[in-house]
């Protein structure tokens, strides 16, 4: 049986005969490991160099092609260029990046010229190829291009991609579908947008804004009504109400008012209040300004700041002494924006306030209004 000699301080008699490798088998193993690691380091050093050389060569190639592509793409501002850009297979991704960049930067006839150029170059085939590749970067640019080209033939494949686990890819597919046919897509996409919490709300709202309020208002209302009837649909309702920021406010306000009136969920009420602007809802808004949750009171105060009446002054003065700082902050600002409010009068009122925090807050709001 092999017995390892753990005593490394012993210098083996045959060390000299063995040359540079330690005689102790375990020590020799560690020594060899060290050598391998150093060899790996030098290999990595070489690969850093090789990568840099490859990068420089690629950049040179890109610059060479870009110098030919850019004038042709720029020509699209005035018309479709006679000569088509030459795009070697390995430069397809880069060309599509340039084409998409121009497409997103230009509008009107120039954009249509770019699309005609793409049609003549059969870019939709390139985009389809890239969409089906295994590389995420290529898939993304392929999906974006298909959207910009309005390629309906890939509708089902893109729709399937909306369910992809990757938030980036699924969002890109959703955006492409909106580019292809926003009206047909929004009817079902808003429910996906409400349920996919891995889709950043900021991106979702940006997509809806691009689609425009005319197209997204009705689907949002329908989806919110449906979600509000589902038990446990609170999170979806809140998300949909947040998405309604880009809808026609006068059309969503009645629904928001109804939800604010009927819901028991503070988060839902607060989200609905953000959209409330109908003076007929003032009664419920005033009631909610006394709600137990501070963020509901805050949301109600913001509404009063927008559509409050002179009669709300007493309520707002009360809320100026609220326990929560943000409620006091918005009460002070709402007081200033009330119809008929005069800074001189409010300054006098401030002098009579016994609550120091309320007086400070009102003082700040007055100073801000005067600044």
């Amino acid at each position, binding site marked *: 049986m092999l017995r390892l000699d753990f005593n490394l301080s012993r*210098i083996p008699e045959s060390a000299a005969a063995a040359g540079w490798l330690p005689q102790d088998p375990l020590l020799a193993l560690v020594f060899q490991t060290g050598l391998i*690691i150093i060899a790996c380091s030098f290999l990595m050093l070489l690969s850093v160099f090789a990568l840099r050389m490859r990068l420089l060569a690629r950049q040179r190639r890109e610059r060479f092609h870009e110098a030919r592509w850019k004038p042709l793409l720029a020509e699209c501002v005035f018309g479709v260029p006679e000569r088509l850009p030459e795009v070697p297979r390995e430069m397809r991704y880069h060309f599509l990046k340039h084409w998409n960049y121009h497409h997103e930067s230009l509008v009107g006839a120039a954009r249509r010229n770019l699309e005609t150029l793409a049609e003549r170059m059969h870019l939709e085939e390139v985009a389809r190829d890239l969409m089906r590749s295994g590389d995420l*970067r290529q898939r993304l640019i392929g999906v974006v291009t298909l959207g910009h080209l309005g390629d309906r033939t890939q509708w089902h494949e893109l729709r399937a991609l909306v369910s992809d686990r990757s938030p980036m890819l699924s969002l890109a597919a959703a955006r492409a579908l909106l580019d292809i046919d926003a009206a047909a897509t929004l009817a079902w996409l808003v429910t996906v947008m409400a349920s996919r919490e891995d889709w950043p709300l900021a991106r979702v709202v940006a997509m809806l804004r691009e689609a425009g309020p005319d197209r997204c208002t009705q689907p949002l209302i329908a989806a919110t009504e449906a979600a509000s009837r589902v038990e446990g649909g609170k999170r979806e309702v809140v998300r949909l109400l947040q998405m309604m920021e880009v809808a026609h406010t006068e059309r969503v306000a009645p629904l928001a008012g109804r939800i604010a009136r009927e819901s028991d969920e503070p988060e839902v009420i607060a989200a609905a209040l953000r959209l409330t602007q109908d003076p007929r809802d003032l009664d419920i808004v005033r009631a909610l300004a006394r709600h137990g949750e501070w963020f509901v009171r805050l949301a109600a105060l913001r509404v009063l700041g927008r559509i409050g009446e002179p009669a709300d002054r007493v309520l707002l003065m009360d809320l100026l002494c609220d326990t929560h700082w943000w409620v006091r902050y918005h009460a002070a600002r709402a007081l200033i924006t009330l119809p008929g409010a005069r800074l001189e009068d409010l300054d006098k009122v401030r002098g009579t306030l016994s609550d120091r925090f309320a007086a400070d807050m009102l003082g700040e709001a007055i100073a801000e209004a005067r600044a």
Partner: protein
Amino acid sequence: MSFFDGWPQWDWVSFAQWFFLLYFIGINSGYMLLNLLSLGSLKRYVEMHSLDDLPRSVSGFEPPVSVLVPAYNEEATIAGSVRSMLQLNYPEYEVVVINDGSKDGTMAALQREFSLLPFPEASWQRLRTKTVRGIYRSATYPTLRVIDKENGGKADALNAGINAARYPLFCGVDADSVLERDSLRRVIEPFLEDPRTIASGGTVRIANGCTVDSGFLTSVGLPRNPLALLQIVEYLRAFLFGRLGWSPLNAVLIISGAFGIFRKEVVVEAGGYRHDTVGEDMELVVRLHRLFRARGTPYRIVFVPDPICWTEAPESLRVLKNQRVRWQRGLSESLTMNLGLLFHPRGGAAGWLAFPFMAIFEWLGPLIEVAGYAFMISAWLLGMVSGEAFWTFILVAFGFGLVLSVSSLLLEEISFHIYPKPGQIAVLLVVVILENFGYRQLNSLWRLWGLLLWMTGSKARWGEMTRKASWQTGGGNP
């Protein structure tokens, strides 16, 4: 017959040799694993952000942010820094400068450059701080406010900034940092992508050798100073896999105070920055892990590998030593103040992997490393250890050090290519080799000194550093 009969015969010298050798193998294998994790993260990150340069990638619905800039004796650079922070490419943000009782003309410079006017703010003192002497607003920049307060240290200044912050997210920025114009936009991404995100931080790079004009970096270069050059490789190693590797495991324990973004309510609930540590940035992050893990609340603390913040590195041994001593003390304090995270039943990767790793290899590491070198050298000189064993130890220690340094450069080459010229890469490759001969060992000695100072409980305050800012040109300075 004794219990130990039949066991290998170990004397203390053999034991010590193997202990140090295995420690070096252990620490470096740990870093290699982190390196592999970083490689995966970096690839995903680059893929996910491949469309960022298209015009439509900007949503315009990013959450508003309060940028907090604590300043202490920053008269020379404060105006340029603030001016650059006012020009960030971000939809809605405010800049709150906190003058922490500077003894020089910091406040006067701010007043002169930004036409400050006193403003009666009803501030919300949710975190206790030293007395605020006054709050000012700029007549020329509506999004700029300045808080003038009594000196209380960086943590106290940041807490005062949090009290004054108007927005749900705040971003702590060192007054001498140079930011990229879209820094905020990039570091905010994790908050957009996952609502559970409570903090995110980005990569800090060294500005020495670069050109900075009007507060913005205009060209990237390498410094002539050898110490600054060595720190470039060190920063690459620390950020590209020291932090990125932990990010997918949700176990990032450090977000640099130079540039980090936090959810305000979460920090206030946690009690804000602690005054009794010089590592207030790391301590806060470790505390957030501890509190969220203990409560079982889902959360994310994320590291963004983008190079978004540039800072001046010390160019003298004295200043560098002070910095490293301070960092080691900060690390010691951060870990010992949050021992509850270590092996907590719900500690996850933060409590079961990152914390023990930090404790063994970063916190106590200098002690073992210095002891290891001292033991091996003296034992070899005294003939207690064979030359074979000694040179094997040196070979392994050097080999692992080299492979880690080179791999960080490789990660950089795969991802961001910050240094554009091949000559710069060649210089860095030489530095990668040279740093293993003395610089790393010197660093271990300084860190050991920091550890000893922490153990003896001596006090420390703001990290005062002699700033040259020789890379700044244009309208940076008043």
